[in-house]
């Protein structure tokens, strides 16, 4: 009976969502307080009901209730509890439920924390979120119900795909969805503003913290996913330009542009129309991404043909939400006034350039992702344009953007002077050029790509530090200690510094791992030694190990440097009998300067194995960079002005940057 409670909650949530999405809007339009007052209670009821059904589904997984079709197809009684719970989002239906569950969390947060907005605006905001929810709930209830029953119940389940049986599965999807779905709040803010006719600095200030939180989660979610791919797939790659990855990367690029253009709108009242459009685009790309990933369009467009109702529903939903939003935009945006004027050389111009770069980059990723789908739709098979396209196009687009990152924050609002910026950045230029020449020669191989990459990374890091020094100098009060001075700088400024530093660290990591990784593919017998540089990898043979729901061949490798043991690695080849699948589990010794990475290929005759050994220099910097970026977001969020400024809407925002 318990699954029925889940289904019933979903149906009730659907009804509440319809009320939440319609009547308060009418109320706000006709100025009827009774209707407007419905927004908050229905939103909370709707959200709690969804969370109830989510918990019910989780319980069904926990209790191995194989009378639920979805549980039977994605779980198994032998599956460890942690993965049974994570299996909730291991398939299409559950992922969709996770999506609305996370939307509920955001909705509840909006009803709790967005209480200092003008009434009609807040009501419209909540109603728009209700409308987003209606569509998703309808999609779940009519085409992808996770509570569909299987009578008679299956004896056991078909198991979670072994590739997904990893701690990464527990964290990655919820964090990623927090980011994806979080952009729905910025979207709702944009739609509410268009409906309200209110697009001003205050609007931008309200939107900013919500956008930053979503962006933070998305950054972390993508980083988790990349890390997971790195150790799980056994090829040592960390980004594959796979359509699923691109689907999460496009909203990130647009979201990053949005964060920057919101800053301009808040400070200078400029870019208003553009900011609204970016808010709409960020969420539209999230939706597109969710559907590309979840609808089965990606494995094959032909999945649509087998279940056309699902595909049609998806399209209809996209047309209503995105099309409706863009129509509203076309009707309302022309009336929005322009912001304050600015010079060709100014902070505004640099941020505009940043936005153009990020938007074009997102567009190029979109093109590369959709192109194979179009070919598939036109009757071809599943093809890939792959890294050759993305590496060439994406890097070329982003490089100027990275360079401008160093200049932008130093430029003054409204009108800046190039010679002035130039003087400030002389030191950074020297540091970057020296690093670009020095680092590749120290690492032993000089290439143009490595030099350019190191230059960009060093450039971002050094300009960011100069920015801090500069800030201390200009704001310095006489006879006050350095620490006191540092304390007067708002957290948001530190947040920006940290996020930019993160980008620098990330660029360095990418450059160095791309330029200096080494790998060997070999056949190793017991006690064979593979030498890579100063390191020796000694293969100590493989033995059978019994896991909870798999049998594993576990290899043992001793790694020595100058005859001293520096690491022990146990890569595995696992066999999962339920799905008859074999999985490679690489073992990695992570380090600040290099990762040692060993994975087992195939067993050969007489205890020998084919073995892959990689040395990945600075690869951890890639994820460290992402975490630093996210921490930057966190600092910006903690800035006290959001709390103070929100209470006093007329107060002039402090000069943050």
């Amino acid at each position, binding site marked *: 009976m318990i699954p029925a409670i889940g289904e019933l909650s979903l149906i009730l949530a659907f009804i509440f969502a319809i009320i939440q999405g319609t009547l308060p809007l009418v109320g706000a339009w006709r100025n009827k307080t009774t209707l407007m007052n419905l927004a908050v209670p229905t939103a909370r009821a709707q959200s709690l009901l969804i969370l109830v059904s989510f918990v019910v589904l989780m319980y069904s997984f926990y209790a191995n209730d194989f009378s639920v079709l979805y549980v039977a197809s994605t779980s198994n009684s032998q599956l460890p509890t942690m993965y049974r719970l994570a299996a909730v989002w291991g398939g299409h239906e559950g992922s969709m439920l996770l999506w609305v569950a996370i939307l509920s969390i955001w909705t509840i947060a909006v009803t709790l924390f967005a209480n200092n907005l003008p009434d009609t605006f807040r009501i419209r905001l909540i109603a728009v979120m209700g409308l987003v929810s209606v569509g998703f709930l309808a999609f779940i209830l009519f085409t992808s119900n996770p509570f569909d029953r299987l009578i008679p119940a299956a004896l056991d389940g078909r198991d979670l795909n072994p590739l997904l049986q990893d701690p990464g599965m527990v964290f990655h999807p919820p964090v990623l969805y927090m980011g994806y779905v979080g952009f729905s709040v910025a979207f709702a803010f944009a739609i509410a503003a268009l409906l309200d006719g209110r697009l001003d600095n205050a609007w931008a200030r309200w939107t900013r913290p919500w956008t930053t939180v979503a962006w933070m989660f998305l950054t972390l979610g993508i980083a988790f996913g990349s890390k997971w791919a790195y150790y799980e797939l056994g090829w040592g790659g960390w980004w594959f330009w796979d359509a699923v990855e691109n689907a999460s990367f496009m909203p990130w690029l647009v979201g990053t542009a949005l964060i920057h253009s919101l800053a301009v709108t808040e400070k200078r009242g400029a870019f208003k129309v553009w900011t609204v459009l970016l808010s709409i685009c960020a969420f539209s790309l999230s939706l597109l991404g969710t559907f590309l990933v979840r609808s089965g369009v990606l494995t094959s467009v032909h999945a649509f043909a087998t279940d056309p109702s699902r595909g*049609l529903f998806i399209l209809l939903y996209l047309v209503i939400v995105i*099309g409706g939003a863009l129509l509203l935009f076309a009707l309302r945006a*022309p009336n929005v006034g322009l912001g304050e004027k600015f010079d060709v050389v100014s902070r505004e111009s640099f941020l505009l350039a940043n936005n153009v770069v990020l938007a074009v980059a997102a567009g190029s990723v979109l093109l590369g992702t959709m192109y194979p789908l179009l070919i598939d739709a*036109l*009757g*071809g*098979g*599943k093809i890939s344009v792959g890294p050759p396209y993305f590496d060439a196009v994406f890097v070329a687009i982003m490089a100027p953007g990275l360079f401008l990152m160093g200049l932008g924050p130093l430029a003054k609002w409204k009108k800046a002077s190039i010679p002035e910026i130039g003087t400030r950045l002389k030191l950074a230029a020297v540091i970057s050029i020296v690093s670009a020449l020095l680092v590749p020669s120290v690492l032993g191989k000089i290439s143009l790509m490595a030099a350019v990459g190191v230059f960009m990374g060093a450039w971002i890091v050094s300009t960011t530090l100069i920015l801090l020094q500069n800030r201390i100098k200009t704001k310095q009060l006489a006879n006050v200690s350095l620490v006191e001075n540092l304390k007067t700088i708002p957290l948001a400024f530190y947040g920006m510094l940290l996020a930019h530093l993160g980008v620098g660290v990330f660029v360095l990591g990418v450059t160095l791992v791309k330029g200096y990784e080494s790998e060997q*593919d070999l056949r190793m017998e017991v006690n064979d030694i593979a030498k890579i540089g100063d390191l020796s990898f000694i293969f100590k043979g493989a033995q059978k190990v019994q896991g909870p729901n798999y049998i594993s061949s576990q290899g043992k490798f001793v790694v020595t440097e100058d005859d001293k043991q520096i690491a022990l690695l146990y890569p595995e080849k696992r066999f999962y009998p339920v799905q008859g699948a074999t999985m490679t589990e690489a073992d990695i010794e992570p380090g600040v300067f290099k990762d040692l990475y060993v994975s087992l290929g195939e067993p050969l005759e007489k205890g020998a194995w084919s073995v*892959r050994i990689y040395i990945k220099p600075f690869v951890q910097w890639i994820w460290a960079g992402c975490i630093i970026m996210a921490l930057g977001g966190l600092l910006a969020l903690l800035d006290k002005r959001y709390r103070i400024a929100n209470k006093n809407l007329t107060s002039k925002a402090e000069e943050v940057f």
Partner: protein
Amino acid sequence: MNRTLKFLIPLILFLVAVGFLTKGLFLNPREVPSPLVGKPAPAFTAPILGEAGKQFNSADMKGQVWLLNVWASWCAACRDEHPLLMDMAQTKRIVMHGLAYKDVDADAQQVLIAMGNPYNKVITDTDGKIGIDYGVYGVPETYLIDKAGIIRYKHIGPLTPEILLTKVVPLLKELDV
């Protein structure tokens, strides 16, 4: 430009995209006829993977029916197709050459070591020029070329047992292989 019209651009772009998606949704998955089918296969000379200094000349294939399979180490769909290619190679019924499209030689070799090599020869197309001549949309793709050097069939995407049985095998019979 009219100010209101300018603001309609995003909506128009979006609707065009939807148009494409809708078409994809209802289109019968049917082969796009390649303009090259029935035409002579473009001639090329290119290095052979793992055989330093040796060149592959497509003209040498005259008088033989052969398959040209375009693949790459960076292509996930190629990995799906790979076991089937291995099975085909076992039967030794037809000569199949691989074209390593926009690939790094070492990466391509690594895949062949790890997953097995179904090809008689692997031709390297590092800069993708041969791919352009053949009108490669993306990888994987497979071409069937007859004794006179005419392309008789082209398949876009991974080969499947079904495609082999319904398309390739009847053609091979027709061509007396």
